[in-house]
């Protein structure tokens, strides 16, 4: 083999992808080899498979489906399990990954097809803990109270959560035997409880965290903080909410 041939042979990307045709069918794996492009990410590999849907042996297969949107790690749509860790496909650069690159759907969620999962449970969790700030009234309520700058700075960190689901995928206590809402939701409750206007509905969020699948389901394995693509201090949020919930529970009991 000539040096050029070796060089050409090396410049490919080998992927092993766990696929599933529909929500109820059995998963199976397929291998793909795509041409290497400098600086390419996992999304670029998947696009190449879509453009030329043949497996490693050149056999035509159905193109692999996945979700994506922003391509700059601010939407959370392309979260999948890459080489055993949940992360965003857009910021997973081929140069930094060990080959073969193994792609799997985040099976904490129901798989729709291939790498596409249904993350509805996360949005249900946000509704449950009221992750918003009610500002509507029947008349102009005027401006809300100001937020201290020192609090705004750390609260901003929490606001970077884009509901990708990596924390749920890595959490051992998010499984079919529990109804745990997940680390991200607890952190969002902390975010909205800190906001001066959001504080007006503080107790409702705390009650929700004490409800079914709430904060007590956390077992402090702390995988969430390790896998969060935005580096959100999830375990600090959980402990901070534990403190709020504890005081709220004791206070509520003594007031009765």
């Amino acid at each position, binding site marked *: 083999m000539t040096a050029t041939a070796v060089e050409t042979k090396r410049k490919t990307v080998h992927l092993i992808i766990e696929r599933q045709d529909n929500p109820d069918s059995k998963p199976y794996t397929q291998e793909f080899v795509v041409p290497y492009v400098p600086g390419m990410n996992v999304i670029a590999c998947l696009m190449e498979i879509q453009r030329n849907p043949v497996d490693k042996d050149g056999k035509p297969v159905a193109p692999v489906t996945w979700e994506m949107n922003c391509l700059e790690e601010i939407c959370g749509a392309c979260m999948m399990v890459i080489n055993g860790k949940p992360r965003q496909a857009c910021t997973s650069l081929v140069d930094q990954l060990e080959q073969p690159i193994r792609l799997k759907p985040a099976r904490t969620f129901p798989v729709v097809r291939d790498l596409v999962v249904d993350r509805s449970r996360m949005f249900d969790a946000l509704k449950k803990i009221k992750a918003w700030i009610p500002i509507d009234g029947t008349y102009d309520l005027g401006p809300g109270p100001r937020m201290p700058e020192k609090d705004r700075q750390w609260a901003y960190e929490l606001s970077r959560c884009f509901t990708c689901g990596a924390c749920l995928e890595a959490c051992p206590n998010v499984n079919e*035997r529990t109804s745990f809402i997940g680390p991200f939701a607890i952190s969002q409750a902390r975010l909205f409880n800190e906001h001066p206007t959001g504080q007006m509905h503080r107790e409702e969020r705390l009650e929700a965290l004490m*409800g079914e699948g709430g904060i007590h389901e956390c077992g402090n*394995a702390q*995988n969430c903080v390790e896998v969060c693509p935005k580096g959100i201090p999830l375990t600090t949020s959980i*402990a901070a909410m534990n*403190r709020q919930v*504890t005081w709220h529970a004791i206070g509520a009991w003594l007031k009765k």
Partner: protein
Amino acid sequence: MAQAQQSSQFLLRRLHTLAGVVPVGLFLLEHLFTNAMATAPNGAVQFNRAVDVIQHIPLLHFVEFFFIFLPLIYHGVYGLYVAFTSGYNAGQYSWTRNILFMLQRITGIITFVFIIFHLWTTRFSGKAPTFQMVHELVSNPAYFWFMIIGVVAATFHFANGLWSFCIHWGITVGARAQRVTAAVTMVIFVVLAAVGVDAIVAFTHSA
């Protein structure tokens, strides 16, 4: 009804973590302290004297039932439920905290089995709780090693549980506070395990 059931889950979990420290954890400390009497030069006499003091606690059976057995059974049985509903993925995510999360549940189950057998052969054996009785038990190598495993598992479960307790109750919030507590609780584990093992070894020497 659904609401009541929901908040009861929260309460049961909080009582579980609380019971593990007070009174079960406190009892563990007391028990290790009493056992350590056996390491004195006149170990048999010192230990039997310490046991005699305990025997004269007023309302002993009442204290034993409400401050030891009841919380212990609750913590143990509910703990089995917690261990069963937890997932285990330390193979895929082998970070220290995740491994300790798994070990906490494994040592909990070991301690559960250990305590049942330990009570069966001591407290409910019908024999008088003396140095001689324990000496005869640990003279059996299998029982000796069973005791060593049980004491190490129980002290780890207690020390690591303290770390978790501090988070569950919102005492240690920041990452630094949790790191420091982790180091402190591991020191507590090593010290308590050493105290426990030392006492078991002391019981192997005849009085």
